């Protein structure tokens, strides 16, 4: 669909102009890197600490209100959003979330947030940190435009109709480039997770090193761009009025599998620890044919004890 160039010096001007139309979320560094509306700064020093999933699968979503016997459905609201600087792992993760919330199930709240979204990717020339392991995790094209950073300019690859329309609208910033983006250009060289049948090594003693360091703090699932579990709560304002909310949930805590009679299926930390990993790289593949995990490494980077389960798994022979 064509490749263009944008001089580095023009990036901020482009983003500023783009922001006039609708909020442009870019990675911004304060105490950590978050996707926030563009405000003059942008940070590509590391992958964002918080993934973009919270903008679609929101942390807290009001599903309905009740007033006495009456149920009032809360209509999802939608607004136009542009995301700039999303890395390939997060784009693929978004594709996986779309397949869950839009294909497997039709989730109106997710759909509303997801509609009217333009995704502008940022290609990692080198892995942003040592925890990345996206190489071989089946990254896919899911953006409208992809930015490749070079010394004096960005190469901008158009990958969708929406992206082409955007370029057309802001044509004055971009110059047509006589270049083709090859598969080699798209490749990111990182360490790899060894693919295998993980069921065969579920009981391997090597996992213990990870389990023992685990605090069950749920940072891994919250920071994961693909984890999509939630729980529903009824919250009473008064005895007659209240709301039903859905809130992110995590398989790392006992409450996740607590059922009537106070029975907990995954009582042991070991089972909860492995469940997250196995769901990402084994159970999901068994159900859907591809890995849920995209290798962004956030579960390791955000872990207070940096449990490197990829290294643990790779060392098991």
């Amino acid at each position, binding site marked *: 669909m064509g490749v263009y160039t944008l001089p580095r010096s023009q990036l901020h001007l482009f983003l500023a102009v783009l922001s006039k139309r609708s909020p442009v979320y870019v990675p911004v560094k304060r105490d*950590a890197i978050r996707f926030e509306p563009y405000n003059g700064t942008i940070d590509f020093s590391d992958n964002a600490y*918080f993934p973009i999933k919270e903008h679609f699968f929101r942390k807290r979503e009001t599903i309905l209100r009740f007033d006495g016997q009456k149920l009032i459905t809360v209509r999802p609201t939608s607004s136009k959003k542009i995301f700039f600087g999303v890395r390939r792992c997060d784009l693929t993760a978004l594709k996986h979330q779309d397949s869950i919330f839009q294909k497997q199930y039709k989730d109106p709240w997710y759909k509303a947030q997801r509609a009217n979204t333009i995704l502008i990717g940022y290609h990692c020339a080198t892995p942003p940190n040592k925890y990345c392991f996206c190489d071989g995790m089946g990254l896919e094209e899911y953006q409208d435009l992809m930015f490749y950073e070079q010394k004096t300019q960005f190469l901008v690859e158009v990958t969708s109709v929406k992206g082409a329309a955007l370029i057309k609208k802001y044509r004055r910033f971009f110059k047509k480039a006589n270049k083709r983006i090859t598969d080699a250009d798209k490749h990111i060289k990182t360490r790899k997770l060894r693919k295998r049948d993980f069921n065969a090594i579920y009981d391997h003693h090597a996992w213990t090193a990870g389990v023992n360091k685990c605090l069950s*703090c*749920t*940072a891994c699932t*919250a*920071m994961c761009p693909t984890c999509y579990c939630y729980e529903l709560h009824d919250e009473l304002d008064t005895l007659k009025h209240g709301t039903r909310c859905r809130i992110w949930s995590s398989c790392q*805590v006992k*409450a996740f599998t607590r059922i009537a009679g106070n029975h907990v299926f995954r009582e042991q930390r070991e089972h909860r620890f492995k469940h997250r990993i196995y769901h990402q790289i084994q159970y999901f593949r068994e159900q859907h044919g591809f890995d849920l995990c995209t290798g962004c490494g956030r579960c390791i980077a955000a872990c207070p*004890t940096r449990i490197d389960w990829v290294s643990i798994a790779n060392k098991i022979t």
Partner: protein
Amino acid sequence: MTKLKVGFYGITGCAGCQLSVIFQEDDLLDLLELVEIRAWPFIKDVNDDETFDYVFMEGLVATNEDKERLLKIRKNTKILIALGACAHTGCVPAYRHFTLQKNYAHLLYEKNKNISDVQPSPIDSFVQVDYVIPGCPPSKQEIRTFLKTVVLGNIPKSYDNPVCTECKLHNNGCLLEVKKPCLGPITRGGCNAICINGGLECWGCRGPTDDANLPVMVTILRKQGHGLKFIKDRLVTFAGTKMPAVRKLVYDKNNKA
């Protein structure tokens, strides 16, 4: 429908937890209509302490008088709720469990010889506690939810996810990453990570989660460069009595508390 007979009592404590009940502002009158307040010595003159369905007990046992009062109330109520950190964990007063007698003996009630001293302890050291509303002070929301739940005849749920779960929902960066000695990973949430939202690390006032990984928490704090004395103090300030493993840390041969 007969109204639930409810009592609010305080033994040794700052009364802040009872204030959390009173400070329900908008909801207080609605709530009080739903239950019959049989006794609340803090705000009522006439108190009938014979039969209760639910008693909310604030404070910890620090004197013999407290203990007798607690035992009597336990006999007179169907359900006893530990309200707040003192009743739940012993909070700051129970620090005495973790220091040597010579450090505090000279401070004990010298001018009031009529007070008979008891090693300050949470109420579950003396009687059976049915529910806990933790926190120093407990969250108003949690008290409200508890009351509404029991009035509707449901069983109250306790929140035993760590503070981190809610902290992440509030978009906070991790304070452990900036070398603050945050106890969030081992502390029961339900507080909406209110301290961390304000930039202060978690001190663990709500007590440890039931599977708190204490050794790993200590390792993290050690790696941050904190000494054993600091770590011990931080761990036992609010909930030492609920973390028996801290004792080993405190009385370790390398540690001269």
